[in-house]
Each structure stands twice: as C-alpha cells, then as structure tokens.
C-alpha cells in the first residue's frame, strides 16, 4: 500500500492569506487527487493533480483559488489562496495505484481560517 504524508497536519490562518499544503507519497503513483471535507460533510473532490500538466478541476473549484502543482510522481502541493472562514476544512491528499488499483488517503490537513 502507498504511504502518504501531508504537511502541515493543521494550521490556523488569517483571512486573506494563503496556505500551501504538501503531499508526499512513498512510491510513484499514477494519479493524485485533492479532496476537501468541510465540517460535518463528506469528501468533495477538488481536482486531479496531473504530472507535467495543469490540474483538472471539478465543478465549483478554480485554479486561481486552489492552484496545484505536481512536479513528479511522488509529490504534489495544494494552495488555498486568499482564504476566508468558509475555507475552514480538512484537506486530503489521495493517490491511486498498486495492486487492485486501490485509492489511498493521507492523514489530512486541518485548516482553520479566522
């Protein structure tokens, strides 16, 4: 199975600032994803991080607000830009690969925006 780490694990940020979340995987994976889990809600896919090209965003999410980088097959970053309290959520990195093409999840980054 893939082991995923995320940094930071949590942060408290001021309105109007930006935060970059890092996701590191212990093996090369084909597909990486970023999800958001708002308080009391389910997981919502933000985007698919594509290696060597622009991320593919889901409806309701835009690159200016959530720029994503994926410089190689084991690393990705998600930036939450110009934050507002509504961005307070858990942000999860997820990867897919390995036996059975299973999808694995990172521990999440808990973001609070004041």
């Amino acid at each position, binding site marked *: 199975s893939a082991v995923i780490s995320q940094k930071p694990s949590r942060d408290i940020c001021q309105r109007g600032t930006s935060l970059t979340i890092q996701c590191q995987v212990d093996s090369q994976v084909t597909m990486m*994803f970023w999800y958001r889990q708002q308080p009391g809600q*389910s*997981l919502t*896919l933000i985007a698919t991080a594509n290696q060597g090209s622009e991320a593919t965003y889901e409806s309701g999410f835009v690159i200016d607000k959530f720029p994503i980088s994926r410089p190689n097959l084991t690393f990705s970053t998600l930036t939450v830009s110009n934050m507002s309290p509504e961005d307070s959520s858990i942000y999860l990195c997820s990867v897919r690969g390995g036996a059975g093409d299973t*999808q694995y*999840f*990172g521990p999440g980054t808990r973001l609070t925006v004041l």
Partner: protein
Amino acid sequence: AQRVTQPEKLLSVFKGAPVELKCNYSYSGSPELFWYVQYSRQRLQLLLRHISRESIKGFTADLNKGETSFHLKKPFAQEEDSAMYYCALRGSQGGKLIFGQGTELSVKP
C-alpha cells in the same frame, strides 16, 4: 450524473445486533463500488470493494444493479466497529472517486 446516497447519518445498534448501512447510487454505466471506513483519529481506509466479493472484519456488501444499491452488512456488530463509513463510486472509465455523505455507526455495549 454520478451520485452516491447514504440515507442514514447515524446508525446506533447494540453489540451483537445485526447492522446494515445503506448505500444507493446513480450511474449510467457499470461502476465500481467501495466502502471506506474512518475510525476515530485515523485516516480514511478502504474496507472492501464489490469486485473482490470478500468479507473484511465480518462485513460484506453485495452490488445489486437492479436496485442500484451496495449496502454494507454485518451479522453481529462489535464495539470496535464504531466508526464513520463512506460508500464511494468510481465510474467505468476508472476516473474519480465520488463519496456519499457518510454514516456514523455507533455500537453500544
């Protein structure tokens, strides 16, 4: 459109009782269905997937294409089964994983 519905937000049962967590889906093709579980203070992890047709921790789930359902069942619930359970769907073209709202299972002693 792809959609996963878990009608119960909270399901509370006593230890030893049978449990069924409901999941219905909407998808025009042949999807892959999954159950993920999140125990307290742990990350989300795969419990089982329909193509494996296996039993994990005593849980089983059968894909019913006629009723578009993938309910999770266990004949005798244990306290350690208390967790958040998410049903998820992946389309036939192997793309993104879409989650239901989740059901919190509470197993009381």
